[in-house]
């Protein structure tokens, strides 16, 4: 990847995204420089559903007839079937000694391909997750290293099955082995975090935002004098934490390291916001002349207010992730569509929760409910994939430069098996992934995650979790 190019682009694009829209890009000549041959950054997305799938309605019976004949649960993917890779045969880490905590392990091991430390079960001690390994490297080029989204807040205190910390039930992303990341739930908060200044979240009024209007009329761009001092102030505070570190137990020292690391991340974030504002001040956008052919208009996301149905919530979070990718506000994102034994899907007219239905025991009614749920989840996935496909970027689409993985942490919810995880990968990863196929992967979840990261240009010191190699079947 041409690093000079990256820096240029970063300087222009530093998080301004929809706040500025395209005119600025044009005025700075960036868009013109982007030739169809230019290599664009690869974005990584991960979308999770708990409880496994109804396997009979998910996996093709006759591989030769794929994709002409699709299993019923995959039907929503038909319009993008040439853009997705259906990946069979991927097992995750064996759950022992946490056999009785299947739903804690299914999410926490999904992106780590690792198990919690059995000696300190009431704390969080697992492994840096794949998305966070990617964020650590790719995140240097974007205002936000990564974006964690979910339909339900995941800060939970307590001890669950097998004596495990309850965060294991609710967390997919681990920034370090000891740092579970919270998900952002409110679309309005996500939007504001992406495109307006920090502090706006609680100072601005209601949650109704129309991103399109927002883009055409950026808010106040003044820089309060003090804010530019925040970075130096944080630096002082971080330095002084070193002293505290000497006074706590070794166990707690890692917490102080986490704290210092988060302050450093915040310093970077403050710098990014400052730079964003500075570039807004400097460059008064000239009237846009020629339409930009290299790239679509910035996606217009309508942020709903009030209570919304689950599917609408997933769609808008998905759109925001797409928008973040499109504007290069981040290159790594996760979307936890439900967790902790799943939800009830009143939209489908079901009365029992996903978890109750997933323990189907062969009962046809419950299996049918599961298939309905799986299909409904894939409708949301297909919506997001369709969005990415609709956005032009360089010679292709945003989807061409993305690897967007959908999956569940169990193969089948009834037996709690960690084998044959349902896995669908959308996008071409900048030409490194060959979609439109149904293949059996010769490797495990760790191999898969390692391969995905490698294809996005992430350098790995060793394969992720139980992985031993890079899964070859992606291309």
């Amino acid at each position: 990847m041409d690093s000079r190019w990256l820096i240029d682009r970063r300087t222009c694009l530093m998080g301004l995204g929809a706040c500025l829209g395209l005119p600025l890009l044009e005025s700075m000549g960036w868009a013109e420089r982007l030739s169809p041959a230019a290599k664009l950054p690869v974005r990584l997305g991960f979308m999770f559903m708990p409880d496994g799938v109804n396997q009979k309605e998910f996996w093709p019976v006759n591989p030769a007839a794929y994709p002409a004949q699709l299993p019923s649960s995959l039907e929503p993917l038909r319009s993008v079937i040439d853009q997705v890779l259906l990946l069979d045969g991927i097992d995750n880490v064996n759950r022992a000694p946490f056999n009785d905590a299947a739903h804690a392990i299914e999410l926490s091991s999904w992106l780590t391909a690792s198990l919690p430390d059995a000696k300190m079960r009431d704390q969080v001690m697992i492994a840096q997750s794949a998305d966070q390994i990617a964020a650590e490297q790719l995140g240097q080029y974007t205002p936000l290293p990564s974006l964690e989204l979910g339909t339900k807040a995941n800060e939970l205190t307590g001890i669950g099955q097998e004596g495990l910390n309850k965060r294991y039930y609710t967390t997919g992303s681990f920034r370090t082995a000891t740092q579970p990341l919270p998900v952002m739930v409110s679309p309005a908060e996500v939007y504001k975090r992406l495109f307006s200044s920090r502090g706006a979240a609680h100072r601005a009024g209601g949650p109704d935002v129309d991103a399109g209007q927002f883009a055409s009329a950026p808010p106040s761009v003044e820089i309060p004098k003090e804010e530019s001092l925040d970075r130096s102030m944080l630096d002082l505070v971080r330095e002084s934490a070193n002293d505290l570190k000497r006074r706590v137990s070794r166990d707690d020292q890692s917490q102080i390291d986490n704290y210092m690391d988060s302050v450093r991340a915040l310093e970077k974030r403050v710098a990014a916001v400052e730079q964003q504002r500075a570039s807004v001040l400097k460059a008064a956008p000239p009237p846009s002349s020629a339409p930009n052919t290299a790239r679509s208009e910035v996606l217009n996301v309508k942020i709903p207010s009030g209570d919304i149905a689950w599917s609408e919530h997933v769609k808008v979070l998905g759109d925001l992730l797409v928008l973040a990718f499109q504007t290069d506000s981040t290159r790594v994102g996760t979307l936890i569509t439900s967790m902790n034994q799943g939800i009830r899907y009143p939209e489908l007219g079901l009365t029992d929760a996903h978890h109750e239905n997933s323990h189907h025991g062969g009962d046809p009614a419950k299996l049918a409910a599961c298939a309905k749920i799986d299909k409904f989840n894939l409708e949301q996935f297909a919506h997001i994939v369709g969005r990415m496909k609709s956005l032009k970027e360089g010679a292709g689409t945003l989807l061409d430069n993305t690897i967007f993985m959908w999956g569940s942490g169990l193969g089948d919810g009834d037996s709690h098996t960690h084998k044959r995880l349902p896995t669908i990968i959308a996008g071409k990863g900048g030409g490194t992934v060959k979609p439109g196929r149904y293949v059996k992967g010769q490797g495990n979840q760790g191999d898969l995650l390692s391969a995905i990261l490698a294809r996005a240009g992430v350098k790995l010191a060793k394969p992720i979790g139980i992985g031993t190699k890079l899964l070859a079947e992606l291309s």
Partner: protein
Amino acid sequence: MFSRLLATAAILALPLLQPEDPRAKLVSDFDRDVKPFIAQYCNRCHGVLNPKGDLNLARFFTGQMALEKMDVWKDAAARVTALEMPPKKEQKQPSPDERAKLAAWVAGFKKLYVPDPGRGGFRRLSQTEYANTLADLLGVDPKIADEVPKDEAGPGFASSIPPLLMEQYLEVADAALDDVIKADQLKTHWTQLPATFIAPVEGSYTLTLKASPEKPPAKDPCRVTVRVNNDTVGELKVPGSSTLTFKLSAGSATLSTIIANPPRTMVLESVDLVGPPGLRPTPTQKRLFLAQPGKDLTPRDAARKILEPFARRAFRRPPLPQEIEPLLKAFDLADKKGAAFTESVRLMLKAVLVSPAFLCLTPDDAAPGGDIVPVGDFQLASKLSYLFWSTMPDDELSALADQGKLHDPAVLAVQVRRLVNDPRSRALFNSFGAAWLGIDHLIDLDADEKKVPKALRRAMSDEAAQFFDYVLKGNRSILEFVDADYAFLNDTVGKLYGQDIKGPKFTRVALTDKNRGGILTLPAVLAVTSLPGRTSPVKRGRWVLEQVLGQSPPPPPGNAPPLEQQAASVGNLRKRMEAHRQNPACAGCHQVMDQIGFGLENFDLTGRWRDKDDTGAAVDAKGILPGDITFSSPADLKRIIAARKDEFCRTLARRALSHALGRSLAGYDDVVVDDIAEAVARDGYKFQTLWIQIATSYPFLNRRRS
């Protein structure tokens, strides 16, 4: 075989050398009290071949081997003591004496441990604690921290601070300081212009300009146009008029000057902007701004005078010199850029509010000693106030910590009583009570909004809080938790009890119906132990075993067939469950769980009484518990559970201690729990005694340094 004999001989020889060694005694007692018991009563099912429930007890040849799997034996002994095992259908049953010997052997485990306070001592504040602490410290509304995701302290609390949270801390600090400093009069002092400031409120402001006229003096004065945000607000003359009063609206503004009659000029010395008049400082401001720079006080010294007492309160301990210095440097940062004194102080206070010593509970300065040291007085004051109030220590606790008196057990007991009797101890229900009862996420329960509306859930939760608080503040017996002849009702919850109560205010109502009262039949509990569409005797039974009796039935084996599959789905739930229990893989646990759960089937998923279940069949609340104890109504069941006083007392003691320490309990805590439970039982099971015992316990008063 020979070598094993030798090994055994060597172990048996140990007691001669060290007659007190508890491990050697357990090893030899195993051969005498346990091995024969297993051979006689357990081997048939839990032997080497096809052991039921995957439990093979015959593999433990020696006490040494058995002691490597203490959890297995604790569980086995608990089941034998509870008369669950051997199953009733077995002809051969151990005598009470034999059962007691097994229990005594397992009880001996706790002597194997050396006292250990375990991990803990450093953790971030929960959202609740953070919000309350900000409120106490700065007099702001705790809602100011609402954007930080809600969580509560306790075992399983994730203490690390991710970047998103750090970002939110900085935003909340800004908002809180805006709140505190905004209401102030604006008092700024600049030596150069233009300058940006924030007018706290709309009103009139007075500008004073100090400048020396140009030399040599010109015949007409220099006319200075004063502008706010590019609007002219008036004109001054140098020499001549030097003050100007004008109206400003609230918000950020830029002040600048232009010389109206060049080439006239002047040399600016300073500009002061003050206003609006008549505003009095708030109590928080008075407590905060203890000094202003003046003739005898440099701005930095004034800042230090403000900082030291503030950091003492914010850190909940005296700040160390090496902590003060970086904070003063934050003041310097702004000061050097020519910011007004208030603004520089603001940046310094913001640095305090994002410091780890504010955001986290930190140990006092390193005390001399080994790996385990007593917690310092300041840390102890914090542990107490955060445990009972979820906020920082008040002046009385802080003063006692300053005087070094908190480690005196008598002082500690008085303080615990004071803390729990304060209205702020309502926080203990939110952090501990709700989690113990499993109703902490009742409001988010994935239930049908029509059947269990949010307003009803809130009322259910409030009812539980009232009950908990009543037992706590009244220092009543914890046994009332299991069986009370009263409840706290309002109009909403009253309906579930079939009582007509007026208004939303809760009142204590004497109950005549013995089926009601206590946590087993609390609507909040009955709601969370139901499924979205129906009641769940299994969940309810399991809840009673876990939260009340302290047993933890293992989750079903992965291949356990669910209800519908085994027998044709005919009959009501009870009939189907009975079929389920025919399966030996399920019988072990479900025997007890379901029996208890069915004893509560008279309550629907909101806790309303019903005579007919979901299928329309009459509810049959009869059941039989191990030891041939029968019951036929919720009232009977409650009475039976309530009689198991010591199991309940131990369970509550375990849960409360684990909460207070913020970690799961380990083997070395067993002896602590025993001591606490015994002391509570001796004192008539009083709830406050439980908390005093916890606050004076070894792990609460000590910490590990490595």
